[in-house]
């Protein structure tokens, strides 16, 4: 599955990540920076007023749209088509890539430029286009870096090359693109720009994702900072936009709210450099617009969440605010998740889209600290979804030993006499392992704890007895 990153098992990927000190430091400092910028542009920005009200408005809009998804998808499809655009509903990733391949073949396309888009990563579009003889060019700087670095995969939804520093980027450019300059970001950017300039003008097809589609006007909206998306959508004669079927808003009014929420939450900007809105209809004599506009609306597992307790996971606007506050992502980075959707939303979304077989371990990679839920601009209860995934997972694939242990827990936690017996007996039972009031090498399941930390020795006094005496007035 193209959504998948790497072939290793989850824990091996985690081990690799934890060994990578450079990556971990990069993650930590990026998180601190992005979190700070986000807070300044949201809770800290007086101009915007009460951020909580914005979050509630965002949640309402997303909820309403998802609850009436059929209606708005129909409306979008109609308005988009009426203006001369072509709409294709793709049930699977394969359906989507097959359709796009057909378009490319019909157009006899040789060069394709792309703006950054996670959904095209999800369906493996580059490989599909290469199969039909197209050369695909990623034009977002971060995606360009990843592409020329032997098709490295994104490690962050908004900042895909977060796991690389400027020296590594310089080396990649030198090794793969005959770059001779320094690691100065301005110089690196200028180089990428010079490489891409010709390509923009020669492209036969431009491919974009879609931050939002506006149902009543049949437009797609792109929220970007680099300007490359505007180049991708103006030069080629054919444009193909791929969107997840949930990425739409009813009208411009809601788009206004969602764009505010997105740019402030994602990068701490009040508004991004470009907010580009495109409709298929063009004047006959227009020279700066595609003549053919295809909109591919993708399901690919999304409807698994519709009408279920996970529906609100589809509210996600891919801002990565949850990723930027997640203490687990902070230490393992994006590739360890094994999915192009990382962090808390990745741990919620990946099992919905790709199943528990592949992604069942991800919901357990969370301490349930709820920083993600607090950060989400559209109030997705992410940590609650993680718990629900865990419930589903243990029902289907839970280990027998753990099930037994939890059953024992249930019995122990509902039988006071047993609990008191255990509490009383514990100091004696644990005494062989106790030294200086703590346990350094515990038996059985305690091993994993004590390999890292001391475990407290069971307290010697009995609180219940103390309390009884205390009530009688003889605890002094």
């Amino acid at each position, binding site marked *: 599955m193209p959504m998948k990153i790497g072939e290793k098992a989850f824990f091996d990927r985690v081990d690799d990540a934890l060994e990578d000190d450079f990556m971990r430091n990069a993650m930590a400092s990026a998180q601190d920076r992005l979190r700070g910028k986000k807070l300044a542009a949201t809770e800290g920005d007086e101009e915007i007023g009460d951020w909580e009200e914005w979050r509630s408005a965002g949640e309402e809009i997303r909820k309403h749209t998802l609850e009436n998804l059929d209606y708005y998808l129909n409306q979008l499809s109609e308005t988009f088509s009426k203006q001369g655009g072509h709409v294709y509903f793709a049930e699977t990733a394969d359906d989507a890539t097959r359709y796009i391949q057909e378009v490319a073949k019909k157009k006899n396309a040789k060069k394709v430029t792309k703006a950054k888009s996670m959904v095209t990563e999800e369906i493996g579009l580059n490989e599909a286009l290469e199969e039909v003889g197209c050369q695909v060019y990623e034009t977002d700087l971060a995606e360009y870096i990843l592409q020329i670095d032997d098709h490295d995969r994104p490690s962050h939804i908004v900042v895909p090359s977060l796991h690389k520093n400027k020296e590594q980027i310089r080396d990649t450019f030198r090794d793969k693109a005959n770059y001779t300059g320094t690691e100065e970001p301005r110089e690196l950017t200028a180089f990428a720009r010079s490489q891409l300039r010709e390509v923009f003008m020669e492209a036969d097809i431009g491919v974009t994702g879609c931050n939002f589609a506006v149902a009543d006007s049949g437009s797609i909206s792109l929220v970007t900072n680099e300007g490359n998306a505007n180049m991708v959508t103006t030069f080629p004669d054919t444009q193909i936009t791929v969107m997840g079927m949930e990425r739409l808003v009813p009208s411009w009014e809601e788009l206004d709210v969602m764009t505010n929420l997105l740019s402030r939450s994602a990068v701490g900007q009040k508004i991004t450099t470009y907010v580009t809105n495109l409709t298929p209809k063009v004047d006959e004599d227009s020279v700066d617009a595609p003549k053919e506009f295809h909109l591919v609306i993708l399901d690919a597992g999304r409807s698994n969440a519709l009408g279920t307790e996970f529906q609100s996971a589809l509210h996600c606007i891919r801002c990565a605010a949850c990723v930027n506050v997640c203490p687990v992502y902070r230490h393992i980075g994006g590739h360890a998740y094994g999915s192009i959707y990382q962090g808390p939303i990745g741990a919620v979304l990946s099992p919905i889209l790709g199943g528990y077989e592949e992604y069942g371990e991800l919901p357990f990679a969370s*301490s349930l600290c709820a920083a993600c839920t607090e950060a989400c601009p559209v109030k997705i209860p992410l940590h609650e979804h993680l718990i629900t995934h865990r419930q589903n997972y*243990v029902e289907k694939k839970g280990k027998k030993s753990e099930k037994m242990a939890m059953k024992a*827990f249930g019995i122990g936690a509902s039988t*006071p006499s047993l609990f008191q017996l255990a*509490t009383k007996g514990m100091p004696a039972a644990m005494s062989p392992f106790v030294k200086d009031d703590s346990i350094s090498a515990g038996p059985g399941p305690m091993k*994993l704890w004590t390999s890292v930390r*001391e475990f407290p020795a069971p*307290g010697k*006094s009995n609180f219940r007895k103390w309390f009884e005496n205390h009530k009688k007035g003889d605890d002094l």
Partner: protein
Amino acid sequence: MKVSLFITCLSEMFYQNVAKDVVEVLERLGCEVDFPKGQICCGQPAFNSGYKKDAQKAAKQMIASFEKAEYIVTPSGSCAAMFKEYPELFHDDENWRERAKSVADKTYEFSQFIVHVLKVEDVGAIYPGRATFHTSCHMTRLLGEKEAPSLLLKNVKGLEMLPLKNNYDCCGFGGTFAVKMAPISERMVDEKVRHVEESTADLLIAADNGCLMNIKGRINRKGKPIEVKHIAQILNSRVEGVT
């Protein structure tokens, strides 16, 4: 005011001194304290691991033990938050849901109860030292209590409170997470300990024994000269240097 104590299984097994301090502070503030004997564990370990039915068993035991209480007070933001989860846990069972709601509605974390119900911000404690405070995730984010502990600690005589870098970051405990995802948890607690060290505090205070068990366990393993205490131990200190 009548207060029913939920002392938490962790406190009862490992931290009886914290439990005693809780009783003494509440009594000093004029509360009539009782201890419902049927209480065991809130069920969070099972709930968070995905074992809803087993969590329900624990929850029923707690609901039955506490439903007659006027107020329920516990020295753990996380366990208090689990009580607040009960009505949803019995989503499909009207009878238990109602009973769960009555318990959830009158449950408070220890410092939250002192500040918001007793309306006390200075408990008259004295504790000379330089300390920093670990804000437990479940208390701040699930229970929504962000102010109470720091208000109380600010008024402890002799106690200088120092800021903790990235205090919003989880310490890596997360119940079963600490063992299921042991290597990740280790890096998280390491970073927390590093930030505590950088704060230059001699003492780390928190309002949840779960987090304290994790951070203290790592501090002790690394042999760092930093004391770790539950907020109840600080609030029950009236003599210099004695807890």
